[in-house]
């Protein structure tokens, strides 16, 4: 009876797994097929011949290479800035002795979690125009950092809070200043939190579409998701090439995920339960 129930679970879960994985397989197979006719004729089958040319076409002609490196640059820079700024606030609010101000500032950070900032796109657009960064990569980097600060600060602050006071006392006796304690004691000790925050914000930035779509108009500055949507709209008729483009977008994220899935899943659960 019990064994039966267990295999019942497995059957359901396998079906679920199939629903998750099949779209990906469909796209990978399609990306290697000759043309739409072959995709339409045998949607489930393996390609007759592997047409790797689709990948070359997507990478070069559709400028996926340009978009790819734009995305990489923007995501890495914003995520690094996010950790630096968030850990500075996290440290000041939890370890430095200004409890009253810190409590107020912490609630400002929490408020940032509450405000849905997609709905604030228009004033942000205007603000970026005013400070003259619209249509440069900074138009994405600055808002990405701002968006990531609330959650990142909350995660980092939680870790900072749990550091024992004795370490601090010892380092003060050894003559460290607040800055020294931050850089040489606190930061290394919350390393795992920094890694989690970096990955979360990297994935978020890598995947972001709305701001990237509206804040950049120069094609050479575009990020991968936006470039991909444009490519799809332009190449509406060539599904094999479009599929190759999708594979380019999906593979890096899959690689990061397969290597770091434990941190990612932990980060997601920690972050959202607290939020």
């Amino acid at each position, binding site marked *: 009876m019990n064994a039966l*129930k267990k295999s019942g679970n*497995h059957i359901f*879960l396998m079906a679920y*797994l199939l629903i*998750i994985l099949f*779209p990906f397989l469909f796209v990978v197979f399609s990306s290697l097929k000759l043309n*739409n006719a072959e*995709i*339409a004729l045998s*949607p*489930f089958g393996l390609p007759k011949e592997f047409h790797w040319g689709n990948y070359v076409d997507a990478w070069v002609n559709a400028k996926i290479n340009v978009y790819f490196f734009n995305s990489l640059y923007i995501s890495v820079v914003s995520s690094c800035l996010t950790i630096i*700024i*968030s850990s*500075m*606030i996290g440290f*000041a609010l939890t*370890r*430095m002795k200004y409890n009253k101000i810190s409590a107020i500032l912490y609630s400002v*950070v929490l408020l*940032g979690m*509450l*405000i*849905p*900032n997609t*709905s*604030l*796109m*228009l*004033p942000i657009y*205007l*603000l970026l125009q005013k400070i003259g960064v619209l249509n440069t990569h900074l138009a994405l980097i*600055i808002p990405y950092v*701002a*968006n990531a*600060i609330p959650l990142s600060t909350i995660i980092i602050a939680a870790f900072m809070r749990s550091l024992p006071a004795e370490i*601090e006392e010892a380092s*003060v006796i050894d003559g460290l*200043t*607040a800055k020294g304690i*931050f850089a040489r004691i606190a930061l290394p000790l919350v390393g795992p939190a920094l890694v989690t925050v970096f990955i979360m914000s990297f994935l978020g930035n890598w*995947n*972001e*579409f*709305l701001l990237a779509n*509206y804040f950049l108009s120069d094609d050479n500055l575009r990020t*991968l*998701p936006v470039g991909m*949507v444009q490519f*799809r709209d332009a190449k509406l008729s060539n*599904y094999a090439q*479009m599929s190759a483009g*999708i594979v380019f*977008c*999906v593979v890096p994220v*899959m690689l990061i995920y*397969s290597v770091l899935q434990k941190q990612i*899943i932990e980060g*997601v*659960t920690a972050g*959202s339960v607290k939020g």
Partner: protein
Amino acid sequence: MNKALRNPMTYILFVIPGMLLLFMFFVYPLISSLYYGFTNWNGISDHVKLVGFRNFSKALSDPAFWSSVKNNGYFILFSVFIQVPITIVASLMIANVKKLQGLYKTAIFMPTVMSTAVIGILWGFIYNYDVGLLNKIIVFFGGQPVDWLGSPKTAMLSILITNCWQWAGFYIVMILAAILTIPKELDEAAMIDGATGLQRVRRITMPLIMPVISVVIMLSIAGSMKAADIIIVMTKGGPASSTDVMATYMIKYAITNFKYGYGNALSFIIFIFTMVVTVLYQVLIAKRAERIDY
């Protein structure tokens, strides 16, 4: 000790960059959006005239806007009554098996780390009338192909399914984490008392994971209010505005039609609606699912 950590210059230096960004990108836009909501500005000219509540009353009496509100409502209903139950069942099942648990957990989360835009393109391909996978399956079983994203009748549903496909794994992982922290002894004690599997789920597991389910519902409501990118990528709000949500409707007005003042009024209304839904949920439902310690 206190001296080293009581350095006003350092404190200010550490706090300023983040606070400045929070102010610039959360507080200022909110205030500015409220201000421009009261104007007739087109976003370009120097001519800004205050028009009172005209934008707001225009929005609230616009049937197209209400139809977009309705679509946000569909998002909420679909997530709460279809997605959440699926994720609870799947989490219970994953928690119940030992073999392959890691595989299920890893694979199920995968769509969540993908870009919504790319998932929109991928599913747009699957829904395609001529070459899409879904119609091929339907025809294979002897049915008639359907124009999934091209027909106002099915477009919204198609988007909701894609959205569910993307985010279910995210919620499963959260619920699963909660289930796995429940001490084994509780379940074993109930088993010794002769409780069946279903009884144990109903009397022990479910009550203990209620707080997390409540968070999951909260997050899916918040997500439903924010949804925009998936719609822009899959249907651009069409066909015939049948898939517009509040955010896409706002973007259409402000950016495509140069009605900046009106767009900001919409943006402020979206903010208020989101707050109201969130607070209502917190007050009416979440409060009942109290935290349980064991």
